[in-house]
């Protein structure tokens, strides 16, 4: 029983972790992309479609990543090249993504999906309890862990990571140092889009292998809150992702048990917890100021 619950928690947390890891890199570069929900749902519909047509869920994963990355280019073009307001453009991306995915996915409704099968590590997966949890998971789980480690290493140990953080904290200085701010930000935005797309692909290939309109159900927004919660640090994204995932799953189990609380109130929990967590993290103004990339959401036009 505990094992089954933990398994579902892992499956529910993985998309949150992946999407938040991507958005973290985008925000570290000083770009606030509120379109995570839209990129996620586009990734989900692309992944489902590609997997359905080809029959290979891995092709679906790739399609989800590409779909999310391409869709984020729209955001990049508007906010980076045309210097449009990032908040408004992010909202536009979400609204367009929800609409477009509904239109694209119209013929997918009710079709049984193709499930991404778990990768079974020989021997290791036979370890009682730990084996099925950690060594009999699908590719997206391993990717999510690799992503957290990779993003941490990339941001804090690599030269490009240092450049990204410099751009996020002071795009003017970075520009003066000869760093190509706009190009780097484009790449950071696309990385965020690719991750959101992968997270969406996880939803339509692993979590519930089918296409349902609006199936992201606010997870993109929760991923955004997760980045704030993690104060822009990858390891904390992992921890936070699992807390949010656990809340979502435990309330479902509580509903199934029927603990006397109306199901709607239990369904509110993930959203209410997000608000509470934001309060706890944000109430200390000074630590927030220290952690937030200083140029987050600010427009940049290179002076020549």
């Amino acid at each position, binding site marked *: 029983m505990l094992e089954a619950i933990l398994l579902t928690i892992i499956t529910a947390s993985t998309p949150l972790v992946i999407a938040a890891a991507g958005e973290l890199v985008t925000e570290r570069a000083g770009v606030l992309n*509120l379109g995570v929900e839209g990129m996620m749902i586009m990734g989900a519909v692309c992944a489902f479609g590609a997997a359905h047509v080809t029959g290979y869920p891995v092709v679906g994963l790739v399609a989800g990543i590409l779909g999310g990355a391409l869709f984020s280019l*729209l955001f990049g*073009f*508007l906010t980076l*090249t*045309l*210097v*449009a*307001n990032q*908040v*408004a*453009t992010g*909202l*536009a991306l979400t*609204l*367009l*993504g*929800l*609409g*477009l995915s*509904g*239109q694209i996915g*119209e013929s997918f409704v009710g079709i049984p999906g193709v499930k991404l099968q778990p990768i079974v590590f020989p021997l290791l997966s036979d370890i009682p309890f730990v084996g099925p949890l950690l060594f009999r998971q699908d590719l997206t789980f391993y990717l999510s862990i690799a992503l957290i480690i990779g993003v941490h290493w990339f941001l804090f140990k690599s030269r490009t990571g240092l450049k990204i953080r410099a751009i996020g904290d002071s795009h003017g200085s970075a520009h003066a140092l000869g760093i190509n701010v706009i190009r780097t930000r484009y790449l950071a935005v696309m990385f965020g889009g690719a991750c959101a797309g992968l997270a969406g692909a996880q939803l339509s290939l692993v979590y519930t292998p089918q296409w349902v*309109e609006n199936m992201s159900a*606010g997870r993109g*927004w929760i991923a*955004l*809150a997760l980045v*704030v919660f993690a104060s822009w640090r990858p390891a904390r994204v992992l921890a936070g992702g699992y807390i949010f995932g656990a809340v979502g799953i435990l309330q479902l189990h509580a509903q199934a048990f029927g603990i006397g609380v*109306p199901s*709607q*109130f239990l*369904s*509110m929990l993930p*959203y*209410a917890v*997000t*608000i509470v967590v*934001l*309060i706890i993290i*944000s*109430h200390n*103004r000074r630590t*927030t100021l220290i952690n937030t990339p200083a140029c987050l959401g600010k427009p940049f*036009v290179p002076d*020549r």
Partner: protein
Amino acid sequence: MRIELERRGSASPLFSVISPILSLLLTLVFGAILFWLLGKGPLSALYSFFIDPLTEVWSLHELAIKAGPLILIAVGLSVAYRSNNWNIGAEGQFTLGAITGSILPVLVPSWHSPLVLPLMMVMGMLGGALFAAIPALLKTRFNTNEILTSLMLVYIAQLFLDWLVRGPWRDPKGFNFPRSLDFSSDAVLPPLLDSGRAHASIIFALLAAVLIWFMMRYMLKGFEVTVLGRSERAGRFAGFSSRRMVWFSLMLSGALAGLAGISEVSGSIGHLQPSISPGYGFTAIIVAFLGRLNPLGIIASGFVLALTYLGGEAAQLSIGISDKVTRVFQGLILFFVLSCDTLILYRVRIIFGAGKTLAEGKH
């Protein structure tokens, strides 16, 4: 090919007018391409989407019914956005306004009085305003991001409504359908004209737009909104409180969204049910931007976006495409508006090949 921007000395008044029109034209062009991809004749599809709904009296009434809540919400949002408070939870405030406004007709259905309707409207506004006060409180007291909190509250409000109409407020004689009892005639906004369903919400909307326009243009409060939105620091020097502005702008937009909610329920639906809005609160964000955050512009853009709802329904019937295309259109409009707005503040140069940059050219 490269795109370069050069900042204009001041905002171009010409492009402030051209930009929304240009973005609508671009949406039409892309819409035509979209219809073509869906295998429909682009021109006839556009015609049945955007012109057909305007040719009949009943559909003009529907247009007013849809434009009412959109304009009401968007006018409030424009004040919030101008003051740099990003309330994106209008859908939740709409829902909560509908709930609090329905307290009288649902819980005291036997009370018949001309006072019922005005009280309902006031309670709807209060409900919306108080619900929007939550992100305001969290922002001023705990420094939380109002974008995320106001959005999370949308889900909470919708689930709360769902619980009400399936639980304590369910009509006992309603054959187990998840809905409240029908409002009595004292609690229903009457149609304005004999020719159709349009009710007072469009009047509320126009009134709110004009009042807010007046406030923004001629009153100190409007000036305060603009100054604090452009530069919080400058506002503080002028003695304006950005804290109070958070409360004011969020609660004002919440109150108008709440009014839109109760008007919609009282005038168009007649009872509470789990789903009371086709996403008015989110579409109103597009309305606000297409109207360039100007209340009078919002009146026009509200009708345009209302038309996309009707067009979607009409196109579904007449040429058999899904009404989901509506939301694609709405998203496209916002994208084009935001990109065309660049033209207001910047000169855009498109440089082909490996041309010299502006500055090098000048040297």
